[in-house]
């Protein structure tokens, strides 16, 4: 059951990224001149992304949602690895949570590429883990045969589309 590992590892990576973003956010609040560790050049810059209104989608810093959400995802993954069998209503609840997460992440991707015009490396870690967490939870809950059979292909296509969108959005800066 691949979903157990995806939830555990994806949850841990997401938790690490959300924690790093929270720590950087606090550092910026303490010292507005602080340059976050993930500000590499004008495009790869979490400093400029963290200061935008979109970084506080619900009126407080987004990484706080990440810390709560990814801690739950990790815990569920570990519980499954421990051999627990969870009832369907529990899976439906998880499905609801990861669906909200994946929708929010795509809104953030859109904002990052087309409105803010910069990429924040830690945020991109969150993009990359949220998609498989959603995908394998959905496959486990729905069990659509075609999707289950080609699970890796659909996931690859999903990443390819986002990768190409990133390339296209920053094409003139990276191509030289």
């Amino acid at each position, binding site marked *: 059951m691949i979903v157990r590992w995806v939830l555990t590892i994806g949850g841990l990576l997401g938790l690490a990224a959300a924690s790093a973003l929270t720590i950087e956010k606090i550092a910026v609040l303490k010292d507005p001149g602080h340059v976050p560790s993930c500000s590499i050049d004008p495009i790869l810059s979490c400093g400029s992304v963290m200061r935008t209104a979109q970084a506080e989608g619900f009126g407080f810093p987004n990484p706080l949602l990440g810390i709560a959400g990814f801690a739950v995802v990790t815990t569920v993954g570990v519980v499954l690895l421990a051999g627990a069998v969870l009832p369907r209503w529990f899976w439906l609840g998880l499905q609801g949570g990861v669906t909200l997460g994946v929708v929010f992440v795509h809104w953030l991707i859109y904002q990052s590429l087309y409105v803010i015009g910069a990429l924040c490396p830690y945020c991109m870690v969150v993009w990359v883990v949220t998609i498989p967490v959603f995908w394998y939870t959905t496959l486990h809950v729905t069990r659509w045969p075609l999707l289950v059979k080609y*699970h*890796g292909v659909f996931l690859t296509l999903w990443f*390819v589309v986002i990768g190409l969108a990133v390339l296209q959005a*920053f094409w003139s800066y990276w191509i030289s």
Partner: protein
Amino acid sequence: MNTKISLAILAVVALVVGAILFFNRSDADPQALASQGGKVTVVEYLDLECPACGAAFPGVEKLRSEYGDKVDFQLRHFPLPMHRNAEQAAVAVEAAGSKRDEMFHLMYSNQQNWAGKQTSQRETFLGYARSLGLDIAAFEKAMDDPATLSKVSAQRTEGASLGVNSTPTFFVNGTRFEGAPTYAALKKSIDSALAK
């Protein structure tokens, strides 16, 4: 099965992107920016909304007034995507025609009034044009002319092909200037280029 198809997809995408890159590669040589006709050339790629560019500007202005006869100063646009109004500001500068230098000056000396805003600063820029005594109708027409924007975009593309990835980036006689672009550091670099 999944791995095979996924790898095939990735291979195809890599091939296509690689081919696009290959056929669009630029062989721009910064030496093309070097002096012509005995003068030393200083090319600056700048973003009007970037604070570091605003900080460097007074030094550049001073050098321009001191070395105007021996050094050819060229200010070129490299508006960065996260600066909401940088591109429009660059367009406004190019739309100012004979008052281009004055517009540069106004943009930087008033930078704190318009930089970092998430709303269009077109009205602010129109105000600058008015204060320079430009014909507003002609100025607006030039701002909305796609040719003005393509002029800015062409400079940015050229900058990217020369390896510019941050602003401000200076080239003194085709050699990329490294370090903080202070008045003294730029002066030293220009002097050594003049001495050659």
